């Protein structure tokens, strides 16, 4: 910051000093209120939750004994928690990689066509803007064993009706596929926007030198797109990690917990089983894990782009 004239040493009047003080801190006038609200609605709840996780608190009882890390131990030793953690990992791995490959592929393909680009973009935007709960309910109908379009179509091929959402062997895959259906267009939009900003010069010189298109893709396109790819992966990862809405309406965690995600399990722990402290401990664990993952991805990201 440039030193103000008023901050120079030597006889200043009080009003000048007050003026210089407000000048030096005037950014707080603009930023302060928003920051204050964010501290109240984000940081305070997290601190509160951390506190709750160290006691045994339920919604009903008034005695709240201090139990230390017991809630964390119970959580980590709980089979259902571990099962939902495993399921969440499954969602993250398959939903992120599936939506990434499809979205990236679509972005590469759309550069090869000329007419119809705009209409295609418009169509692919639709799933992103839908409420996840609406998407889940819609696919419930598509997958309905008696009236759904999928089974009607399978019937035309001579395959008998399937209860895809009710079987442990297929339910998780179905939910992941629906998640991919909704979010691969996001990857597509991000990558496509990134590709539109790529410089032309390296491509032209590479082509002049007769470099194969696969090598151009590997040596030029991928490195230049690195920050864009990271952003897409980061967003998809944090969203897949918190999956709740579509699972809630499609399977509600069943059958036999095969589709239960961490968010869903913690929601149930707190509100169905009234174990607030244990759910708080679980949510703090969740925050630590996703914090760690996104911090590592951020690190890669900030190497590439200037933020702030």
């Amino acid at each position, binding site marked *: 910051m440039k030193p103000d004239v008023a901050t120079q040493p030597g006889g200043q009047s009080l009003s000048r000093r007050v003026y210089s003080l407000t000048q030096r801190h005037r950014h707080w006038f603009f930023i302060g209120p928003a920051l204050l609200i964010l501290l109240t609605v984000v940081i305070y709840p997290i601190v509160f*939750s951390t506190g709750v996780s160290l006691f045994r608190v339920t919604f009903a009882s008034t005695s709240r004994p201090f139990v230390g890390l017991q809630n964390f131990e119970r959580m980590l030793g709980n089979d259902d928690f571990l099962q939902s953690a495993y399921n969440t990992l499954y969602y993250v791995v398959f939903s992120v990689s599936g939506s990434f490959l499809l979205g990236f592929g679509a972005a590469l393909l759309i550069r090869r066509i000329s007419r119809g680009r705009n209409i295609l973009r*418009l*169509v692919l935007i639709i799933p992103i803007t839908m*409420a996840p*709960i609406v998407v889940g*309910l819609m696919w419930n109908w598509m997958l309905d064993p008696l009236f759904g379009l999928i089974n009607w179509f399978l019937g035309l091929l001579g395959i008998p009706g399937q209860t895809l959402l009710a079987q442990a062997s297929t339910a998780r895959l179905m939910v992941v596929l629906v998640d991919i259906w909704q979010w691969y267009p996001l990857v597509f939009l991000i990558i496509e926007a990134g590709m539109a900003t790529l410089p032309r010069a390296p491509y032209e010189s590479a082509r002049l030198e007769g470099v194969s298109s696969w090598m151009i893709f590997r040596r030029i396109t991928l490195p230049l797109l690195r920050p864009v790819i990271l952003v897409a992966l980061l967003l998809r990862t944090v969203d897949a990690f918190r999956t*709740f*809405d579509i699972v809630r309406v499609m399977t509600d965690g069943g059958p036999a917990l095969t589709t239960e995600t961490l*968010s869903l399990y913690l929601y149930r722990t707190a509100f169905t089983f009234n174990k607030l402290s244990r759910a708080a401990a679980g949510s703090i664990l969740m925050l630590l894990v996703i914090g760690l993952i996104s911090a590592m991805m951020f690190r890669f990201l900030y190497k590439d782009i200037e933020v*702030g």
Partner: protein
Amino acid sequence: MVVPVRERALSYAILTAMAVLVLIPVLAGSLTAFKPQIIWISSPPVWFFEPTLENFEFVLITRQNWLHLRNSLIISIGSVVIALVLGVPAAYGFARFRFRGSKGLMQWLISLRMIPPIVVGLPFYAMFLFLERATGLGLRDTHFGLILTYQTFLLPLVIWMMRGYFVELPAAMEESAMVEGYTRIGALRRVVLPVVWPGIVATALLNFIFAWNEFFLALILAGNNTSTLPMAAGTYVVRARVEWGNLFAVNLIIMMPVIVLTIFLRQQLVKGLTFGILE
């Protein structure tokens, strides 16, 4: 780029297939909203029929989902207004003043995007409950309570998006106005705001979509007085087997405003979804 004919044909084929797979469930589902009850569940599906609005009438009036529609409007608009009132000045502050820690604060704002909603939803429920027991001050099941909690995801986004618009403006704009005798606030109001107005509108509409589609926090914190349209849609899952027409009527009511807004917002959408990190 010169593309061989075969490659282009293949590209068209795959992309068309993708578009069709996106459109079929959306269109076929939406069609059900206009079907009379007797053909809701017919399989094979009936494609040609006389469209009716009775499902909409039934869910909005008989099932009283107009109340949910009202709550959704109040909460979405209210939370966007608050997010703008707080976020636009903050974005301006971040864009115009360099101070110690400004970069770190901006990064911190992005990191809020990573927080799973259960992490704040859970303590919010408990805090509202304990606050009510201790002081009688009820935030539970109030529009304001939800508007407040929605700031967790709206406010950082507003700041990031609006900062992008402010950074694009030359600082000389308000400086020359200030030389002419305006205060900074005066210069902001008379000179800067009229120019960034389209940006504010785009930011507002995009944030409206996010608030409108929100389900998780509402599920935890809303009650009879405040439950939103996505929650109303959620109740049809229990009845779904027999009420496809009603379910899709509610779905369509949720989707309609968003689809209309998206047509105007295509350019801003990526920016909003990525926090404008890629600018």
